[in-house]
């Protein structure tokens, strides 16, 4: 690539320009201010040259010829006329052709006001129609999926949706049918457009043909206010435009931030927002009374909380959660716990993650865009199509561009189809397989040798909640040894990386400092006063300590361990045993239902601050609406409590917190709101910034992880759509979780004497239908995590599985 010239000289309308080599004419022209109209062209899609709107005249050996500028690569000396009479007539002609059968129902079309067809008709189109024939019509609209509707008569057949589904998402579920004047977009019979990325087709549709059920007829584009922000449903933090009208979030669109999501969103990113407006939100402080929760005033509730928390020794109190909050909120939570309550028991992970040092300070850490340059990629962890869908798209792109992919998992993953090698291992035996694989032993030699070509990007994580979290460290230790390797860990929960960076872990202090780093502790004491003497406890340790009486009070911050932690029974027992439970949350969950007081927390979309994604990129998450009801940002709540406990955290204003973070969190030195404001080309910032220091660096080493040899081992796998409280309350996606099944290998089905669709009982109490799946490792059972049917199932490595006996 270095041999080719970086720029070429082209002439457009008589003016010479130097433009970057290797791009298409339409893009090159736009880069020098010559906008050529288009419908089918999209920078992120392969050109098809179908709409013909971008025709320009280009000098060739046989004189000037009309050429679609979207398909033509620029070459040195190219002479282009985009304004000649021939070009103008061709463009007007194409627009007229597109309009003759278009219904022109702009007054009732959702796209009206942001419609490329409307806009370009204004700029390039003929003034009036010469078409007097009867227009082509289709029955309106058809559901191509649960989320997406298609008005075929508005469609200009640009092929964008088909290409997004095929090429970007790998879901070849949309197609053209029929021919000539009757061509239309359709799904395959009995095969709806079920895709985790279906909303992108709506966003890219250049007309009002594709609409989403939740936005249809809801608003006019010119009434929408736009707030550049990020999605918080997973740790990718896709950059997104949150669009509001009259105080309600109406729509979320992807923003083309090439460092993160390139404009794409998963449907969960796009459609979770409606949960913000759910009627089930907690909107007022609730206090447990004789007949359940009773509303109360903030001042009364805060007085009670301050009073209660003040009645315990510091180390009797623990805080669980903070991963669904901003960095600023998380920082204040840590400061509140350590300097006001006097407890080091803080944990943003709830036993579902990995070692906090590993997650926060893994070295060398990759960026998402490193995948674009990777020669080979190792994914050993969860099925990222389910857990990090937009990262899945980036891996797909890398493979499309020539990277080789190796995937390791106990069951089939979304990436298997494009992987050159798939390592299938029985859940619980990962350590054994890793040893054989890294040594290139028989059966693994080919796959192992793929990874000899660098740069390598390793995506490592815990493949399921039932997997020993230390396996990922061993995988990382191996991956780190690969040529030019960089690594990303695959924690899944919202802003968990930001929370860890803010010190919400028993072993971490703000700014990627180990809790045992004496210099770090002293630096923090200078700012905050004396630190607790005791060592911090993890979430699971806190639960154990509460049950044994060593701890007395728990603060749940936007976390639902009864549903989300690997030992739901322990979580429930601890919450029941605790003298006092405070929940600061958006919903009454299975966990917060056990609280004594619930304080209504402001949610995503309502709070201002920053968040940090899995690559360590800090982005601004802006508020687009006022917190609903009486809900308040966490920092405000904690500031009020601390004042009542005699300490002023100075944490009511986000800007003040930001200043505090920059001064006491070394890895965040220099991060201010100013350079996190999203404008084109500014893509957030990966911490630490150049010049800042990161005290902690985690070098993974192989850890001894026991191999589980029991009859059946559990792969408790996350699915994109689950029974989580936000998913459940987001109307558009609430019904999308797939029915839970127990997937087992055909040979295990034979041993258990069960057929597809018959039932098994797991651990004596969870009954699930069997799905026989040859992609599941023999001896393992795949059960979806956090679904209605699996609520309460403990994530243990080995499980008892019995065929359900009708005669019992």
């Amino acid at each position, binding site marked *: 690539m270095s041999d080719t010239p970086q720029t070429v000289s082209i002439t457009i309308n008589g003016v010479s320009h130097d433009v970057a080599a290797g791009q298409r004419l339409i893009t090159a022209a736009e880069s020098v201010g010559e906008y050529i109209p288009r419908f089918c062209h999209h920078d992120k899609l392969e*050109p098809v040259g179908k709409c013909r709107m971008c025709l320009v005249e280009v000098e060739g050996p046989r004189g000037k010829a*009309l050429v679609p500028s979207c398909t033509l690569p620029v070459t040195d000396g190219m002479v282009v006329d985009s304004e000649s009479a021939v070009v103008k007539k061709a463009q007007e*002609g*194409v627009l007229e*052709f*597109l309009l003759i059968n278009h219904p022109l129902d702009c007054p009732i079309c959702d796209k009206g006001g942001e419609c490329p067809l409307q806009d370009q008709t204004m700029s390039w189109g003929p003034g009036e129609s*010469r078409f007097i024939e009867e227009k082509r019509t289709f029955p309106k609209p058809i559901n191509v999926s649960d989320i997406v509707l298609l008005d075929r008569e508005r469609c200009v057949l640009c092929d964008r949706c088909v290409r997004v589904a095929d090429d970007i998402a790998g879901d070849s579920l949309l197609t053209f049918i029929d021919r000539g*004047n009757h061509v239309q977009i359709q799904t395959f019979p009995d095969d709806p457009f079920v895709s985790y990325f279906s909303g992108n087709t709506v966003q890219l549709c250049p007309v009002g043909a594709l609409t989403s059920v939740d936005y249809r007829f809801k608003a006019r584009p010119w009434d929408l206010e736009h707030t550049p922000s990020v999605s918080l449903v997973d740790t990718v933090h896709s950059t997104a435009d949150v669009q509001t009208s009259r105080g309600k979030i109406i729509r979320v669109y992807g923003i083309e931030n090439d460092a993160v999501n390139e404009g794409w969103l998963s449907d969960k990113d796009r459609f979770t927002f409606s949960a913000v407006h759910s009627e089930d939100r907690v909107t007022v402080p609730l206090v447990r009374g004789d007949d359940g929760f009773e509303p109360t005033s903030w001042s009364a509730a805060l007085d009670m909380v301050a009073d209660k928390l003040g009645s315990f020794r510091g180390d009797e109190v623990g805080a669980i959660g903070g991963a669904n909050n901003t960095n600023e909120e998380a920082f204040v939570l840590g400061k509140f716990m350590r300097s006001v309550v006097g407890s080091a028991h803080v944990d943003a992970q709830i036993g579902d993650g990995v070692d906090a040092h590993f997650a926060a300070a893994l070295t060398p850490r990759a960026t998402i865009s490193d995948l674009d340059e990777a020669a080979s990629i190792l994914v050993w962890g969860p099925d990222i199509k389910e857990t990090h869908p937009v990262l899945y798209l980036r891996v797909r792109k890398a493979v499309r561009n020539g990277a080789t992919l190796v995937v390791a998992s106990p069951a089939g993953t979304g990436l298997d189809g494009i992987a050159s090698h798939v390592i299938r291992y029985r859940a619980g035996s990962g350590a054994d397989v890793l040893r054989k694989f890294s040594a290139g032993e028989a059966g693994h030699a080919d796959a192992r040798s793929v990874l000899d070509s660098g740069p390598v990007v390793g995506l490592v994580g815990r493949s399921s909640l039932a997997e020993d979290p230390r396996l990922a460290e061993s995988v990382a230790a191996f991956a780190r040894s690969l040529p030019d390797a960089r690594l990303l860990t695959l924690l899944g929960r919202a802003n968990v990386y930001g929370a860890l960076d803010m010190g919400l872990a028993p072993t971490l202090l703000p700014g990627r400092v180990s809790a045992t780093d004496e210099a770090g502790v002293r630096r923090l004491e200078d700012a905050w006063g004396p630190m607790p003497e005791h060592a911090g406890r993890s979430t699971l340790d806190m639960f154990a300590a509460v049950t044994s009486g060593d701890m007395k009070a728990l603060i749940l911050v936007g976390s639902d361990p009864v549903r989300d932690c690997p030992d739901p029974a322990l979580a429930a027992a601890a919450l029941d045993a605790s003298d006092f439970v405070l929940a600061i949350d958006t919903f009454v969950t299975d966990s917060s239902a056990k609280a004594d007081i619930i304080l209504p927390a402001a949610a995503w979309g309502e709070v201002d601050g920053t968040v940090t994604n899995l690559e360590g990129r800090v982005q601004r998450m802006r508020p687009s609406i006022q917190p609903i009801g009486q809900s308040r940002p966490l920092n405000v709540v904690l500031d009020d409590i601390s004042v009542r406990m005699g300490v002023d955290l100075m944490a009511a204003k986000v800007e003040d917190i930001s200043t505090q973070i920059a001064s006491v969190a070394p890895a965040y030195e220099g991060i201010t709101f100013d350079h996190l404001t999203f404008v084109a080309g500014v893509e957030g910032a990966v911490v630490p910034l150049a010049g800042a220091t990161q005290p902690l660096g985690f070098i993974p080493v192989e850890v001894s992880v026991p191999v589980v040899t029991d009859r059946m081992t559990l792969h408790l796998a996350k699915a994109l759509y689950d029974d989580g409280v936000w998913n459940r309350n987001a109307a558009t996606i609430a019904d999308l979780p797939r029915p839970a099944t127990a997937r087992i290998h055909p040979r295990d089905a034979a041993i258990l004497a069960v057929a597809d669709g018959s039932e098994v009982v797991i651990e004596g109490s969870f009954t699930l239908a069997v799905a026989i799946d040859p992609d599941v490792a023999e001896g393992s059972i795949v059960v979806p995590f956090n679904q209605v049917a699996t609520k309460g199932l403990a994530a243990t490595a080995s499980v008892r599985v019995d065929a359900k006996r009708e005669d019992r």
Partner: protein
Amino acid sequence: MTERILTARMDAHPSDSNTIARYEDTGGYQALRKALTSMAPQEVIDEVKSSNMRGRGGAGFPTGVKWGFLADASPRYLVVNCDESEPGTFNDRQLTERDPHQLLEGIIVSSYALGVDHAFVYIRGEYPKAARRLMAAVKEAESAGYLGDDILGSGFSLTVTLHLGGGAYICGEETALLNSLEGRRGEPRLKPPFPAIEGLYAKPTIVNNVESISNIPWITMNGGAAYAAIGPERSAGTKMMSISGHVKRPGNHEIVMGMTWRDFIYDLGGGIRDDKELKCWIPGGASSPWFVPSVHLDTPLTIDDVAANGSMIGAGAVVVMDETTNVVAAAHSIVRFFAHESCGQCTPCREGTSWLQDILERILSGKGRPQDLDLMLDVSDNISPGLTWPPAMTTICPLGPSATAPVASIMRWFRPEVEAMIGEKAAHV
């Protein structure tokens, strides 16, 4: 006039020209033997180059030159286009039905020359007899050792796959044909890349017409120079011409180019039925602009002379119309065909051809407006800017511009007749 390269056998032996016995008996498979035993592949290519044969599928691009573009990668493919579907064309059908071994020998020799070990024949689905006979010929050739592994002990091996189309004219466009062969929608591809670089399954591919390939055995046996010596310099060799419409003797004729259209229509075609007056004719298939007797009767029937007069011989389909013809109805019939056969992927063709059809239908039904004449021309111009020849295109492939040829033709030669239909209830012929 007496030269017969392609049809001598079928004329002499109408009952069994399709069998291998008759084929061998009349010199068949000698070209293959000659090529495999005494010629290097490049020598075969050189003969085809020196024959000056121009591709018989329509575009008239020299076959040898096209072969020279085939990229040096493996595997590479030969695809024979037998998706003959344009109204008025039927000579590939005759060549395939009545002399399938000639075609097959051409395929085998061409594959040897091009370094191909897998050739495909894409046969129009409405040609079951042609497909059946070619299939039988393949079986016979395999049994005789002309096809399969180690042909005639030369070490050269070839598989031939026949594929029946599903009834779409657009699949005769070579890249749409390749898509269809691959199991995709029959939509023309963007070019470049051309098939010789990236064709079937993204491998270098030569796509040739049945008639072109059927000439290869003769050229191999007799040499390129002998072929080039037949007929005018730039229209060398013989050409299969299909004549239909209002003539006394419709059918296929293998001709040496250079005769006048008058000789062709009145001698070979036997003149106009019922001795009516000739009104106009389509010189090279439905997509070619029309000729009229007042201007073109004495124009020589060569590729270049026809092109110089703004049309083409194309695949050699001549449709003759006499004085009773309603030219608007004739144009409508052709436009309707193209609108129906448009693949629909690009805007001007998808929308423009059916719009033209609508306008013509309105004129025919007596609802034409004075402005419709210029509107038709302008709509045509937006599909094929300038309405020049060869056509400029706003489209991906030439199908859309093809639909403008009849419109431009009737407006050029018969405008008063079209005008006369405006506002009156005209009979639909």
